[in-house]
């Protein structure tokens, strides 16, 4: 008798689980390659620093990583990031995975003399019409040197 009741309860739960709404279906916006991504900033600035090159020019280096958890489960071997500093035109930078599974970004700029640097990074993807590329999901982070 008890077993029958348990069976009925189990069948009821099974039925309810089958007809339960899929909440995630209305909230598909957490993949960073989604044009409608609404999540948080997907990269972390590791370091921004000034240095002088061999020619004695002052440069600003930007180092960033994209943590593995920000990526879809099938990771590409390479991604291209559209990066711009202080509103300068974006440049495409190829990034590769390190041993920790993080994608590393490094770029040196010859900036205008300033102590405030705003770095904007976006993902370069094939445009909707399949011709050319576009930058999506850009985030900007500013640092004071």
């Amino acid at each position, binding site marked *: 008798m008890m077993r029958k009741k348990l069976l009925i309860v189990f069948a009821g739960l099974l039925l309810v689980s*089958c*007809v339960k*709404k*899929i909440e*995630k*279906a*209305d909230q*598909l916006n957490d*993949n960073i*390659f*989604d*044009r*409608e991504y609404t999540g948080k900033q997907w990269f972390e600035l590791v370091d921004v620093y000034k240095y002088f090159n061999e020619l004695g020019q002052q440069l600003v280096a930007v180092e960033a990583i994209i943590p593995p958890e920000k*990526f*879809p*489960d*099938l*990771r*590409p071997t390479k*991604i291209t990031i559209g990066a711009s500093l202080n509103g300068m035109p974006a440049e495409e930078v190829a990034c590769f995975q390190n041993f920790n599974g993080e994608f590393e970004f490094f770029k040196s700029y010859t900036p205008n003399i300033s102590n405030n640097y705003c770095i904007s990074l976006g993902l370069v*993807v*094939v445009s*909707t019409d*399949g011709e050319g590329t576009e930058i*999506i999901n850009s985030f900007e982070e500013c640092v004071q040197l």
Partner: protein
Amino acid sequence: MIRCISLIAYFFFLQGLVAQNKGQVMFLVDVDNGYFEIEINDTMLLKRYKTDLPEGHYKAKIWSPGYVVNTVEFDITANKTTEKYVKMERTNDFIQYEYDYKQYRQAFHKSFTLPGALALTSAVYTGTTMLRMYNFRQRTLDEIELYNLSSTSNEIDQIKLNVNNYNRKFLNNRTYFYTGIGFTALFTGYTIYAFTKFKKNHTEPTFNKDSPFRDKYSFYPGINSLTLQIKIG
């Protein structure tokens, strides 16, 4: 003891038949139930349409369930077949039974067949929508899984279109499923209620199917025909 006397009587009866010139009689009994019994000369009961008889004049009573016993007379000529067409009339009881049974069946269909068919249809429809709902739910989940895997924006656009499409169909079928469950429960409940009420208020009409010859004979299969022997004791 009774069986023994019957055997002896039947033996002498057959001996008598063998000794005389015989003819055949074939009854064409017009009944729609396919069953009839023929009593010849108040002594022999037939349950088939033809038999061999010695020459002579005979009187036969024919009965079939729901029909009035009809009496016919015929002559048997040696080595000839006599065909006897017998038109049967319905009994008043049977005519009343047919009317009552029709009413009974109509009430039955109204109380059970119709709501039962609706309940069954609704159950089949609900089952179908449940399968379709489950199918679209699974396809939606599969597409979401692809979404989590993909790192190509254009592919993601297509996946999201698929998710929206499948999820909309899932939700539609979910609504149909719930509606179907409601209707199935409603029709099933009504069927049970109506059938219970029907059983309470109606009794299946019957009519007397007993043969008027039943108590007159004991069953005893003959050698060359399905004749039955008169019960002596």
